[in-house]
């Protein structure tokens, strides 16, 4: 089994695990971790694409690798924004739930007619 296939399997596993966590973990920080897992899984897919594209004296295709670097920075920025929101939400309300019902004010309720 060539290394890129192994990396592909790891990438797919990370995507699957991350999806599971992102969907099911109620805590937003856990969701964020799961998102980062999916992210690194996706980056690995880019990585194997780059590795398979080795040609012309390069042992990798530089374009997908460059995209991964951009992607990692963007993912970090997203994480930072999410963490700031989570912490602020926690500080303001003492809760971090994403359940829409929990944040419905009484006057938001549907018209009972």
């Amino acid at each position, binding site marked *: 089994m060539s290394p890129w296939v192994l990396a592909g399997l790891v990438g797919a596993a990370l995507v699957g695990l991350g*999806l599971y966590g992102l*969907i099911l973990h109620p805590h937003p920080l856990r*969701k964020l971790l799961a998102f980062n897992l999916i992210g690194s899984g996706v980056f690995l897919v880019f990585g194997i694409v780059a590795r398979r594209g080795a040609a012309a004296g390069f042992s990798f295709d530089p374009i997908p690798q460059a995209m991964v670097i951009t992607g990692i920075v963007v993912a970090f920025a997203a994480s930072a924004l999410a963490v700031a929101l989570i912490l602020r939400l926690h500080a303001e309300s003492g809760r971090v739930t994403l359940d829409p019902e929990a944040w419905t004010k009484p006057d938001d309720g*549907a018209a009972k007619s």
Partner: protein
Amino acid sequence: MSHLSSTLLVASLAAPLALLAACFVKNWRPRALALQWLAPAPGLAAGLLGLTAAPASFDLPGLGFTLRLDPPGALLLAAASLLWIVVTAAVWRERAPDERFGLSWLLTMAGSLGVFIAGDLVSFYLVYALVSIPAYGLFAFSDDAEKKRAGAIYMAFAILGEALLLLAFAALAAGEPHGSSRIADMMAALPASPWRDAILALIVAGFGMKMGLIPFNGWMPLNYAAAPIPAAAVLSGAGVKAGVIGLIRFLPLGVPLQGWGEALAALGFLTAIYGVLLGLTQQNPKTILAYSSISQMGVIAAALGMALGAGDISASGDVAFYAANHLLVKAALFLTIGALAMRGAPLGGWTLALAATLALSLAGLPFTGGALAKLASKAQFVSGWAASLATLSSIGTALLMTHFVARLDAPPPDAARECPSALVRFWPAVALGAILLPWLFFPAFGYVSKALEIAKIWEGLWPVLLGVGLALGLRRLGWTAPRVPAGDSIVLFEGAFTRLLALGPGFETLDARLRQWPAAGVSLLLIVLALLAAGVLG
């Protein structure tokens, strides 16, 4: 098309729209609203000019709109313009209503005149929406629960009708092979359209809602009872005719469609009889007039149905004349309620006589406009059963109108207040005008002399006499009709609607469930997998 008439045609639509534009400037608004009685003047002129001219179209450069004037449209345009001028002038002469009412009035007027001259699909739909929807503002802004209810029901039917017509029109447009949007071209393509039956069903249902054909008749009595008298006059007179012109324009009258014709005729006669019967159960004169309108629209639908079955394209003129007569008479009858209420009981002898003559004009009383209308419609009701049913509806109308005249001494409480005093003073002129004006228009459609033949007079008279006699007889016998709530079948619609509303909480629950994060996440994966499967397997 001559320069003059095309200019007038454009002006008939442009005049109300220009006033509307002026309303955007706050300082001009009161003036513009007060002047709106002049807005239908070009329409009146164009209509009179077009009565005898050959049908002609005029394309508005740039916008892709087409205006078209043919004798049926011209007659209705002229009659409607006249009605709007008279009622508008009377309403604003006394005291300017509030701006909300004034704007609704102006919009409805623009639509009401526009439907008679719109020559392409889109502009027809536009003006049709104008005559339907803003009319809500003429009666429904109120704290009164019954008026609110009438408004909501009116709106529901108006919008539903619009939706059905939109689909019909889209199908028409899709079936027109050359990309033309002119109604005439659409109609030429309709008989060969693969969706012909669907389109016809939608057309009949859509315009039927506007005309109050059963089972869509329930909104009309509520609406007219809720509307102040001038509004009821223009809505029942001019407004409803949008449905009539719609059927005239959008039924392929040139090609015989036996099945559709008979179905429409049957629906029309059924409505005609139903309107009379239900009208007899009512006490409020406004409601009685509403049921009379339902009945009369039934007659019109029946006439069009017969024409459709026979492939008789000339019927459009006859039907338009019948409708124009109804336009004038029904409006005058509404004004009569107000005028007589202001005069107060007891009603004098000649007043009553004039009111009765006006009312019986609808039943085809000889020497009234109604006799001419009946003559015009006769051409459609040649076959045995149709002729019998037409006569039956005349008898019924006479019966119903006698009931109406009898109820004139018990007008609804607001009638006197609602009616502009100018109309009270000029009421005799208005009534006489409604009775006699059709005689001026008729030469464009047939021979007046025919109406004066003894046989025809008798033919027109006996059903009226029979109807009146029946009514007086029943009255003498002390028979009272069972009471049916105004709007009859509407109660069923409301019930169905309430049950529909009960689905709302179900949707809310569904939405609340789906908006849970895990549900949304699972949905996302399901969508991805479904798209994948559709691609790979499909």
